[in-house]
């Protein structure tokens, strides 16, 4: 994941599995291992795969910061449908109050 994020950051875009493997050369991973991990990340919608001729290219769906922001949003927002998903240390905020909060923040 770090390799793909770094690639996006440097503007290189999508990488093939082989390029990912080379970037992780110091860990001596087998090609199948890299492919398995990439497949798993794809299923979790963290990575998208595009086909370019015979090669498969992998790219991160969002930057690390975007994902952290998504997590923080979940953690701070007490929306009822997410309300049951997490248990916050500070409890959640009732509906009408949350609207007021949004107004305050915007």
């Amino acid at each position: 994941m770090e390799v793909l994020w770094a690639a996006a950051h440097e503007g290189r875009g999508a990488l093939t599995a082989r390029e990912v493997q080379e970037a992780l050369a110091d860990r001596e991973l087998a090609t199948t291992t890299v492919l398995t991990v990439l497949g798993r990340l794809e299923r979790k919608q963290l990575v998208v795969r595009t086909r370019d001729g015979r090669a498969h290219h992998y790219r991160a769906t969002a930057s690390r910061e975007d994902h952290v922001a998504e997590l923080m949003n979940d953690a701070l927002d007490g929306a009822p449908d997410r309300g049951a998903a997490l248990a916050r240390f500070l409890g959640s905020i009732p509906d009408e109050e949350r609207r007021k909060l949004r107004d305050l923040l915007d």
Partner: protein
Amino acid sequence: MALAALGLLLLGVLLAEPVSRAFSRARWTHRDPVGALLVWQAIGLAGGLSLVGSGVVYGLSPLGDSLPTAVGTLFVEWNEGHWPDRFDAVHLIALLVALGVGGRLVWVLSTMYLRTVRARRRHRDLLDVLATPWPDSPGTRVLDHPQPVAYCLPGRSSRLVVSAGVLEALSPEEVWAVLAHEKSHLRERHDLVVLPFVAWGATAPFVRGMVCAQIAVAELIEMRADDVAACRSEPHELVGALKTVGGSAPAAALSSFTDALDARIERITAHPCPLPWYSRAAVRLGALALVAVPTLLLLV
């Protein structure tokens, strides 16, 4: 049987509105959160049984003296291939309304549960990639963000999360207090305790009593988790953590949020003495009796 139906309807309406409202204002619940949570579960279960049961009992009353015999008669006549002719429109409508309400409740509860599970899975996938394990406490992960938040992701594969902001702002003892609070949510599956009330609130948001119930239950699980955390660490550490994290939360601009926070801090510092054992026993027996009444009315 019509009398039993009337009794059930009355009980259901009483539980859903005045009883829920009055109970959410009771103060003794702060001295026995576990007992109060049991009573809430009993109110929810008994209320649902009564409201749905009253329609079913009334609808089937022409077919027998009690619900079991009436259901038996219905199936026997159905198997013989004809519709019981003692059924008139009023009874049929009552039956359909009751089944509709019951079905809606089950539907809301299951879709809500599925949505929750899906949201949790997504959140957990992201966490596992983004958050780093915290070496000081196994099973805890650190999310690299300056805003102090601490929460847990309940479920079979649960996660405890603190942000880098929390580790920055709190002393190690205070972090332990926060973790003890969250672990109690996970261990006692507070997410499942709240779920039925969220479903009731979503099924009938126009009934004020249901909304009161939802808020009261949410407060009680926090009290329970605070009690556990105060037991496993020093109460003043928990208070310090609440003040620091609460003071920097974006919601601190809301008066209701700070009021709720102050109430929690005051409860931990003052530590109201728990109810005596006989009162606690009475509360638990009361909860049991509450469920037993509609069950008996349905069966006899």
